[in-house]
């Protein structure tokens, strides 16, 4: 970084969507995240990998303040989204989560119709003025979620009646419907079979065109397939962060090398 010119720095800054510096997370007495600093780029898929319990999901959930719902969880440090501190007292987490959407490990559609699943977010955020606009949003979101063709004839069937892979793509479409800028995915494929996984991965790759995607995954192959940047977490530390190609072919840290070659984790 030192040899960058000033202009290059500015250009790099513009590309950066999320800046975390010195983030610490405590669950009661448990120090879950230890001083993590990372810059996450826009229009890029960033993968968080690491063994179970290393804090990658915890860190992901800091990015849209999902950890606020856990009483014993304390977060310190600074996380900037477009230069604004998301942990500032004036920030309402509800507004933040409209900008930073999230997809969870287990597909969790609402027990409502497919249409209502997608329309719920736009409705509560007032993104549409009438039914026709809402219909548009639903269709657009389902198309971008790559599930439109499968469900267009049964929009009013319950979302819980879809298969696991369809449910997960429905959840992704639901997250997109509120026009977020960042999409957080917490092991989105861990409950899916290989075919559904392939479909979701393809979708993630498309989403990169318009969003900043952060994905937590247990599968290193998946990280290698879908991401451009990879961060390796171990025991609450961010061990190494860099281009995916470099992390997988030529890691700098011993621990990263041990993990990707299967010696730890």
């Amino acid at each position, binding site marked *: 970084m030192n040899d960058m010119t000033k202009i290059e720095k500015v250009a790099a800054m513009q590309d950066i969507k999320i800046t975390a510096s010195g983030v610490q997370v405590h669950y009661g007495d448990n120090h879950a995240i230890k001083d993590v600093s990372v810059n996450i780029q826009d229009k890029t898929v960033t993968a968080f990998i690491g063994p179970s319990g290393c804090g990658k999901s915890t860190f992901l959930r800091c990015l849209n303040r*999902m950890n606020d719902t856990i009483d014993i969880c304390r977060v310190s440090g600074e996380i900037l989204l477009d230069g604004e501190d998301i942990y500032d007292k004036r920030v309402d987490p*509800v507004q933040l*989560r409209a900008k930073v*959407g*999230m997809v969870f490990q287990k597909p969790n559609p609402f*027990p409502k119709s497919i249409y209502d699943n997608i329309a719920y*977010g736009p409705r509560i955020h007032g993104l549409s003025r009438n039914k026709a606009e809402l219909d548009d949003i639903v269709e657009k979101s389902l198309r971008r979620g790559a599930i439109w063709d499968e469900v267009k004839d049964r929009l009013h069937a319950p979302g819980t009646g879809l298969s696991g892979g369809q449910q997960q793509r429905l959840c992704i479409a639901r997250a997109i419907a509120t026009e977020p800028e960042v999409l957080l995915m917490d092991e989105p494929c861990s409950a899916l079979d290989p075919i559904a996984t392939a479909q979701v991965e393809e979708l993630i790759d498309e989403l990169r065109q318009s969003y900043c995607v952060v994905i937590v995954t247990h599968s290193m192959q998946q990280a290698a397939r879908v991401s451009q940047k990879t961060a390796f977490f171990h025991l609450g530390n961010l061990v190494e962060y860099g281009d995916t190609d470099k992390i997988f072919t030529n890691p700098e840290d011993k621990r990263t090398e041990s993990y990707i070659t299967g010696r730890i984790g």
Partner: protein
Amino acid sequence: MSDANFPVGARAQSSLLALDARTKKRNAAEARFRAYGIGAIAIGLLFLMVLITSIFAKGMGAFQQTFITLNVELSEAKIDKSGTRDLEAIKKITTFGYNPLIDAALAQALTDAAIDNPFSKGKDLRKMLSSSAAADVRDFVIANPDRIGDTVEFHLLASSRVDGYLKGRVSRESLTRDKNLTPAHLDLVDAFYGAGVVSKGFNLPFITGADASESRPEQAGIGVSMLGSLYMMLVVLACALPVGVAASIYLEEFAPQNWFTDLIEVNIANLAAVPSIVFGILGLSVFIQFAHLPQSAPLVGGLVLTLMTLPTIIISTRASLKSVPPSIREAALGVGASKMQTVFHHVLPLAMPGILTGTIIGLAQALGETAPLLLIGMVGYVASNYPSGLVDGFMSPNSAMPAQIYEWAKRADPAYYERAWGGIIILLLFLMCMNIIAIILRRRFERRW
């Protein structure tokens, strides 16, 4: 794999077709346990059968009542001497003044059926009828003054002894110690029964009627106390459901986890186990002595039962809120719903069947509760009047179904014993209906999942 590869002490080679000792023992234990279980259920069912048969055997009689059909001549000379049909003048004639009419009608009935009158005095003959008979005739006349002068057919209540005789409760032997009726009356009843003057019919007044004084068990009904129970349930529903649900939502979804909320939680759990009479005495001191609400009123009864039902509702509501998968909450929060939107749009609808079931079970429990009513004066009150309106229904003294049953069971006249059992049947029917409603609601709401 050869045996040589096993460590010493490994399982010996055995046939699958023969049971070894260990398996036999295990199977025997399992068979024994099944037998215990079936035995326990059989005992439970047996007790239930005994309970239901005894309730119905003893209580069904209350739904049958003996009536005496009489053609009463509403003689103008006796009840409207002026002949002007002036209601005020008619009302001046007391119940007592109608007795001669009934005596005459009874005598006529005897002549019609060609039976000799064994009694010299009309008063003795009239003992076959309920002492409410004259009042019934008088009420009819006041309601229909234009019928004066006609001969009208009345179905008058027979006295409880006559009723008991036809139901097999009273016999000629048992009458030797009874000064109300003589065996001669029973001969008459037999003769009348043959002639169709005395007949048994469905006892609608028992279901719709009011309680009566201790000497007129044939007239007593559970209708007014049923209304009392209804008004109390309305109070309980209106107070306990919103308070209970709001409290549980706050405790389950919003409240921070600290020693104070833990304390509240423990207290709610304990309150559910507090004897109901304690709530009664609390209600007495708070609602009646301190707030000066009317004594024996369904409003007070309802408030006391609300206190009693709240813990039940809160516990069941919290349990059903807890059972909503956290993934639904995360999903809603993840698309940017606020805490309250998450609860009201997603969690509450999913928890609804459980909440409704808990509420109805709580209501059913409150419906059958007697002890707290003891202390606020709803037990022992003779509910002989219908409330005159909605406000009156809440504020004027009344009884409640279980209190009424308790009251009847306490009274000396054996005819009331039958009424008490009959009341229990009605109460059980209500409870059954409420449980069926709970099941239907649960089914209906669960379909949305």
